């Protein structure tokens, strides 16, 4: 009876938090980009129009067309309501609607991101469990230090090294651009390596700690072997930190896409972001950040909603820390 109320309270709290975070991300983005010194429109026009003179009138006209001439609170209200309707404004550079650009760029990014996420989770799970089950201490030590190594490698460099080895030397996959599944493999692997390392590290440590909790001795004292202990009880108990990290991974994938798409010269969200920042095309940057923050917040919400499924203590108390 209390369990139902606990879950309802928990879900309501988490959904409310998600809405709040998305709104706050929008507001912070708006404030950072509009209130900092410098006029983005003038900046852009002067930067591109190297030949002809840019008159104040030109700038004023462009500002009026983009709605930048009104006081910022009015701009804020308008852009907020526009965003709620799915209108994220238009690019200063191309005058293309930002929402359209993002929708067009999503599919290639999702392909790489989804495969990368899958590889991260599988790789991390395998490595984390193996590091605890390996029978020889040397093997355990090796498996435990692998993630630390992988986390220290810069993603952009890893991508370039993979291209050199697998595309240019071994010619197993196309090097840059390309289409089809084979062109997704290297970018996805590049994206997955730091993620897998993170999952392996967190899951490995969590499992290690779990197997040393007093209740694990109770289970051992009933005659259960290590495999039964790990697979039957341990993984579930060790899962919460790993699930939390998996949520963070999605954030890492969004950020990693910028680097990986640049390295592999692939189209997508990352490329749009990279070039928008390079051109200081602020509406596009704002749109990308808000969309990414929304995606990330929704993933975090999904992870939060997974906790009560994993842990009955959260079901009954509605709190993450049992007490």
């Amino acid at each position: 009876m209390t369990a139902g109320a606990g879950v309802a309270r928990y879900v309501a709290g988490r959904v409310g938090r998600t809405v709040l975070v998305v709104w706050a991300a929008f507001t912070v983005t708006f404030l950072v980009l509009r209130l900092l010194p410098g006029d983005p429109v003038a900046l852009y026009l002067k930067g591109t129009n190297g030949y002809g003179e840019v008159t104040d009138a030109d700038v004023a006209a462009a500002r009026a067309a983009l709605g930048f001439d009104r006081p910022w609170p009015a701009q804020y209200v308008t852009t907020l309501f526009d965003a709620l309707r799915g209108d994220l404004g238009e690019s200063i550079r191309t005058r293309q609607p930002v929402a359209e650009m993002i929708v067009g760029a999503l599919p290639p990014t999702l392909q790489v991101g989804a495969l990368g996420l899958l590889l991260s989770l599988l790789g991390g799970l395998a490595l984390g469990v193996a590091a605890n089950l390996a029978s020889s201490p040397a093997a355990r030590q090796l498996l435990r230090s692998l993630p630390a190594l992988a986390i220290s490698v810069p993603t952009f460099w890893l991508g370039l090294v993979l291209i050199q080895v697998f595309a240019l030397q071994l010619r197993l996959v196309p090097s840059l651009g390309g289409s089809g599944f084979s062109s997704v493999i290297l970018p996805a692997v590049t994206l997955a390596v730091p993620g897998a390392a993170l999952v392996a590290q967190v899951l490995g440590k969590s499992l290690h700690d779990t197997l040393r909790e007093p209740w694990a001795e109770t289970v051992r004292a009933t005659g259960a072997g290590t495999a039964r202990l790990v697979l039957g009880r341990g993984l579930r108990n060790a899962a919460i930190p790993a699930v939390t990290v998996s949520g963070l991974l999605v954030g890492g994938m969004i950020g990693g896409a910028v680097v990986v798409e640049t390295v592999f010269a692939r189209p997508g969200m990352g490329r749009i972001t990279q070039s928008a920042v390079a051109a200081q095309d602020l509406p596009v940057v704002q749109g990308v950040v808000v969309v990414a923050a929304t995606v990330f917040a929704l993933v975090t919400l999904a992870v939060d909603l997974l906790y009560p499924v994993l842990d009955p203590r959260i079901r009954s108390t509605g709190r993450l820390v049992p007490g």
Partner: protein
Amino acid sequence: MSAPVGAAAVDPGAGAARRPGRGRWRAWTRPGVVASLLVLAVIGGWALAPGLFTGRDPIAGVPGEQLLPPGPAHPFGTDALGRDLFARVVHGTAVSLQAAAIALAIALVVGVGLGVLAGWFGGWFEAVVMRVVDVTLSVPGVLLSLLVIAAIGFGVVQVAVAVGVAGFASFARLARAEVLRVRTAPYVEAALLCGSGTGRILLRYVLPAVAAPLLALAALDFGLVVLAVSALSFLGYGQPPPAPEWGALVAAGRDHLATAWWLTTLPGLALTALVLATNRLSRLLDAEGRTR
């Protein structure tokens, strides 16, 4: 370090007192740790006195020596303009390390300041700070940095600021949690009962207790900060050419990926070695801090 327990045989449990013994320095002689210290020493040397490590000019190229593979004359090879890559890597060290240090300092000072004040004073201030922290943590770090760069423009310092701003939240969160933990710790309450004033309690009891885990986090974060700064440089938001910087060197090498592998591989290797070494040492420091 400490006197033997000898004299005070008051309690049978006296032997329970634990002292860190000679084993303390054992951890520092492990091969991985020694290698990490060496890497840091060499890279530190590059940053402080690049002239000692290479006599070649990092900016001016030598005609006729374009795109030479690594060899005795040019240990890292040369680039398309005939510049010695090793010289460029060595001379780029200082810039890369400075940017990382600035970023970390911003994150540490802003984060710890806000976190400590929030934890100590509570109330609306704490509520506002912690909401800001929540929002910051809910936007992927790279995007936050890109947002800041889009707003304030390009350059090494700008990149450092962007990375620092993206990183302050975790420090603020930890600092607040630590202050809250220490505030109600029995020994702080004992100090209160002894009549110690607020300032004295903060200075003598709270600050030292809060500092250790924060410095441990800073050490752990250093590798991540180096990676973030170099990634932004790689994307082209950092140092303008021809000045060398590690991330930018890798980016420049992309144009010759098929013909000159060393241009991307070797600067990246130096970067990886630096991050690996700092990560190894910071984990050791963290572990030592915990056992103390």
